[in-house]
């Protein structure tokens, strides 16, 4: 498959009054054409920062690339000038944000907000752009689009606004669409509609999606592949089945165990103990070891490298080292692994 975006050894820090916050500490991943890659992790794990750094939307005076590159169309996005970046934003890569209530300009009719990227990136006139905008609104399922072009954001509901934001993002048929928790701020029923819409549109315009979320239910629903982030690093990456049914990293185990499900008997929901690491002063070895009951001596000293589980699946944990002891994952995870062909608990059958 064609790699459309490659993130290599990306390191990024924020310079704050308190010191240097190492928000991203060596992130690697590829994005393939037409796929949906979900990035999951808790708040502060660096998932939003990673995508914002691809778009170069971080405050220039405090965020600083320390290392690595972001390759897109043969160019390193970290090295582009502002002008060059403006030509990519909204045209080749576009973005949907978390809160539709605040991501539209309150004093500009939505029609103008949709035509803005069209007029900017495509050589078309105002009338033409208006027609395209109306088509876009229809595409995202907005009834009576002609009438709504002149209305202001406050005249739309949250779900409708997110549809408008999606219309803006799709205006120039981008190659990559970054969705930063696009359903978090919405009601559950609306969430499902928006997710359906995004899946639908992806098929129609063949774009790759990076989908950021902390909701594993959403991930299972939309993603082809999943990257799990913790403490500014990707700790495990694989196809959605591999992550859900053959997870290797204790943090992924923790995430999956803390996911509520109807068929678990346990009355008490599992919670990962402790708090995310302080990225002002990141721990030396495995950042998750301090919260993990599977910690090894070496976790305290050395950062685990990536160990390959399959061609598509790798995880950064010392537990995969040949010398490491066998450990028992949590019961709920074993239950899952029983269904995955190739896992050591496989009992036959299919997922």
């Amino acid at each position, binding site marked *: 498959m064609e790699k459309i975006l490659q993130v290599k050894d990306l390191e990024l820090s924020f310079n704050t009054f308190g010191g240097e916050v190492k928000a991203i500490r060596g992130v690697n991943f590829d994005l393939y054409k037409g796929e949906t890659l979900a990035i999951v992790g808790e708040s502060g794990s660096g998932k939003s920062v990673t995508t914002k750094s691809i*778009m170069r*939307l971080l405050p220039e*005076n405090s965020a600083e690339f320390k290392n690595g590159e972001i390759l897109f169309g043969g160019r390193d996005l970290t090295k582009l000038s*502002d*002008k060059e970046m*403006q*030509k*990519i*934003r*909204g*045209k080749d890569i*576009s*973005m949907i*944000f978390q*809160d539709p209530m*605040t*991501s*539209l*300009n*309150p*004093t*500009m009719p939505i029609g103008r907000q949709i035509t*803005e*990227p069209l007029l*900017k*990136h495509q050589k078309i006139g105002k009338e033409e752009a208006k027609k395209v905008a109306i088509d876009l609104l229809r595409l995202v399922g907005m009834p009576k689009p002609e009438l709504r072009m002149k209305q*202001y954001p*406050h*005249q739309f509901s949250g779900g409708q606004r997110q549809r408008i*934001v999606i219309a*803006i*993002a799709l205006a120039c048929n981008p190659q990559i669409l970054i969705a930063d928790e696009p359903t978090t701020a919405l009601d559950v029923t609306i969430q499902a509609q928006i997710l359906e819409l995004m899946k639908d549109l992806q098929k129609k315009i063949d774009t790759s999606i990076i989908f950021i979320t902390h909701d594993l239910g959403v991930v299972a629903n939309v993603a082809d592949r999943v990257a799990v982030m913790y403490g500014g690093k990707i700790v495990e990456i694989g196809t959605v089945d591999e992550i859900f049914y053959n997870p290797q990293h204790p943090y992924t185990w923790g995430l999956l165990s803390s996911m509520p499900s109807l068929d678990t008997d346990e009355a008490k929901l599992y919670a990962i103990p402790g708090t995310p690491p302080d990225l002002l002063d990141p721990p030396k070895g495995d950042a998750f070891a301090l919260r993990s009951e599977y910690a090894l001596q070496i976790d305290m000293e050395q950062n685990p490298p990536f160990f390959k589980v399959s061609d598509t699946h790798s995880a950064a944990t010392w537990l995969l080292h040949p010398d490491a002891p066998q450990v028992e994952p949590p019961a709920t995870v074993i239950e899952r692994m029983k269904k995955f062909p190739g896992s050591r608990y496989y009992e036959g059958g299919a997922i």
Partner: protein
Amino acid sequence: MARYIGKRLIYMVITMALIATFTFFLMKILPGSPIASADKLSPEQRAVVEARYGLDEPLPVQYFDYMFGLLKGDLGISINQFKGADVTDLIISRMGPSAQIGFQGMVLGTIIGILLGMIAALRQNTWVDYSSTLVAIIGISIPSFVFASLLQYWFGLKLEWFPVALWKDGFMSSVLPSIALAMFPLATAARFIRTEMIEVLGSDYITLAKAKGASGSEIAFKHAIRNALIPLITVLGPMTVSILTGSLVVEQIFAIPGIGEQFVKSIMVNDFSIIMGTTIFFSVFLIVVILIVDILYGVIDPRIRLSGGKS
């Protein structure tokens, strides 16, 4: 919206009636006679003078006469300062210079203030920002009469660029007083716009605009400025108050034949009808300005426009 304006208008009338009543009775309990030379007059002469101004009538009659007069726009007649002159005419005749320096000061101050605030926000935490903040703090802190005195001493007396305390040279005479009055609106606008701009620039929709590929200037001019300017309307009220307050002293310092100067003089000579008339005139002016500001805000901000005018 119509209901909102209606409600506001009713409040305005009540407030005005209260102010007029309040002013009227305060003037009546003031120590001393309203007639300056009362002590020197014989009782007969005094009665004649009092009858001329209607001061011999019982208090309720005087009160209702005054209130009915107000309805017709009649603010009474001057007793001491301009014997027998109509207060309404006196105020109207003095409006020109006051309006001129007030308007010039307001416009000058607001425009420069907006520019300063915007530049400061766009160049946040640079020397441009710091010097604009300094100007704003000084503008808010230094009272207009101190500033006016300074201007007069330096540009009037020392450098002789502008006429001193003479309202004869038309526009040239109005320059220094206008600058003195402009300081507060300037500082207020600069501070206000800076905070608003910084907040707007940090908002999600600006990030979205950036994500669309908009350039720095497109973001500033197409998206940020309008959103930052709208709330400025809310401080137009306090700015007008400051111009009015300032005009009392600034007109005094630059000897401008305006309403403020006349008001201060009438306080000195206890000309009750002018004090009352001017008080009521100022009140009406400010209340109307604040009403207009509130309505304007509802009209301009689409978020408020449809939700009935209440924020």
